């Protein structure tokens, strides 16, 4: 019983963090699916989302607002707007002018964007950790009579539910809406989509904006979960989410979701049963292992070179 509770606790922690990774990973995978390149500034967009949410929460609290749902919704909307604008700007500045050139060029310009955004936040907000107010407190406790107590906090439930809603809306958008249909067409054959009269530039912008909006949601959620943000907040999360996207098969949206969950669970299992120091070793080791046996990732499709 104790073991089961302990295991469940690790599973819950893993799924919480994993679903947030999945939200960020979608941004990587969608951009890759459309233009075949990695958006290296994505982690920073996530970080800026977290900062914006924090600023909004602080501002609203200072104004004397106390109704929690309103604060959260306003913070979420602000974060989404600012991050989406950033995502759009990254594409305009770092990708569009060099599109169609050698693949390394947009890669370098995106890394440049990433360094710029990180240092901009350094300057504007300082390099120290800033505490995130604990807004959602409490939770359920199980098995309190024994030695180990399993807890499921309201914050974790919020992360699950929000991620679930985002994923559902995104899946519906991609499979049902006209813009989603155009996104799929552009990702399969950009040239042909353009010939059929689809404005591919708009679709590419939309992809960056959607990815950035989801990263902003993750920024708010993980900021609250960890309780603090700093300018390097996006670096390691971006790396993890990128790993999740590759693990699941880059270019595949269900793959990003799955990859995020697997990564999150494997991390928390390692922390729980081995040691916290080993969690990155295990998650990146897992990535290497999966890529050895399935180079396109779990749900990725084998890339067929177009003639």
């Amino acid at each position: 019983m104790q073991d089961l509770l302990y295991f469940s606790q690790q599973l819950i922690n893993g799924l919480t963090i994993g679903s947030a990774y999945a939200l960020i990973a979608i941004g990587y995978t969608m951009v890759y699916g459309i233009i075949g390149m990695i958006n290296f500034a994505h982690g920073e967009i996530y970080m800026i989302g977290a900062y914006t949410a924090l600023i909004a929460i602080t501002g609203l609290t200072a104004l004397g607002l106390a109704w929690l749902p309103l604060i959260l919704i306003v913070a979420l909307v602000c974060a989404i707007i600012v991050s989406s604008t950033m995502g759009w700007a990254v594409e305009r500045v770092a990708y569009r002018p060099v599109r169609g050139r050698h693949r390394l060029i947009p890669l370098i310009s995106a890394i440049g964007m990433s360094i710029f955004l990180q240092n901009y936040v350094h300057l504007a907000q300082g390099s120290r950790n800033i505490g995130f107010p604990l807004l959602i407190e409490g939770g359920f406790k199980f098995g309190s009579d024994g030695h180990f107590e399993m807890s499921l906090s309201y914050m974790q439930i919020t992360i699950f539910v929000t991620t679930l809603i985002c994923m559902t809306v995104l899946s519906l958008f991609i499979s049902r809406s006209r813009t989603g249909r155009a996104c799929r067409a552009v990702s399969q054959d950009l040239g042909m989509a353009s010939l059929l009269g689809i404005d591919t530039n708009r679709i590419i912008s939309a992809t960056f904006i959607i990815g950035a909006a989801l990263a902003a949601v993750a920024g708010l959620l993980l900021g609250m979960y960890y309780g603090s943000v700093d300018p390097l907040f996006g670096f390691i999360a971006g790396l993890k989410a990128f790993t999740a996207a590759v693990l699941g098969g880059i270019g595949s949206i269900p793959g990003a979701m799955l990859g995020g969950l697997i990564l999150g669970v494997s991390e928390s299992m390692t922390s729980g049963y081995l040691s916290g120091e080993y969690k990155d070793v295990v998650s990146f080791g897992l990535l290497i292992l999966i890529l050895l046996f399935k180079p396109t990732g779990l749900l990725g499709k084998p890339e067929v070179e177009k003639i």
Partner: protein
Amino acid sequence: MLEVQNLSMRFGGLLAVDQVSLNVQEREIVSIIGPNGAGKTTVFNCMSGFYKPTGGKILFEGKEVQGKPDYRISRLGMVRTFQHVRLFTQMSVVENLLVAQHRHLNTNMLAGLLGTPNYRAREQKALDRAAYWLERVGLLESANRDAGNLSYGQQRRLEIARCMVTEPKLLMLDEPAAGLNPAETQELNQLIVSLKEDYNVSVVLIEHDMSLVMDISDRINVINQGRPLACGTPEEIRQNDDVIKAYLGEE
């Protein structure tokens, strides 16, 4: 309707197309033929906005279109196919036709989320048009299959249907019969003729096999090694000495 004047295209030291001219009237099927490597596809690529020609003019309904981006040209009503089929293979057959009507649709996301009457009405119209063309090319039963699972002949017909739902004025087909068996080719030729007769579409056709285009073309342009060789009705082309030489070699 379409007028190509002295079109030239140079790739570095190679003059792939040299002073080619052709014109297409309304409701006319014009073929461009020539041996492999004659520059036929290059002419097409210039016309559809894939390449920016290095010389000459392309007038569509009196407006210069050379060097314009491809999606602009297709919005004017000139659409093309490729030598190899380029369908969205991981989308269903009907989705291929819907996505081609993207620019006719209301893409307002808010309208889509709310399902406004206008949004739904246009979606319905697009579906109706897709169903009409699927019926027309005999693919209605396969509407929900992935386009990649169709046979090659079916994919060719779907590609033409996908062009037609955009309501083009001019259809540019690059070797539409490539890879088809004689029966499928016959079917395709009938389809092309009916596009002209029933839907008032002009067609420009590329083919390297002369026999295929003789029956359906109103006029034929022959190019060889990037240069115009002859131009006229199928009958005139059949008897043209230069053409016979280019195709069969000199005695």
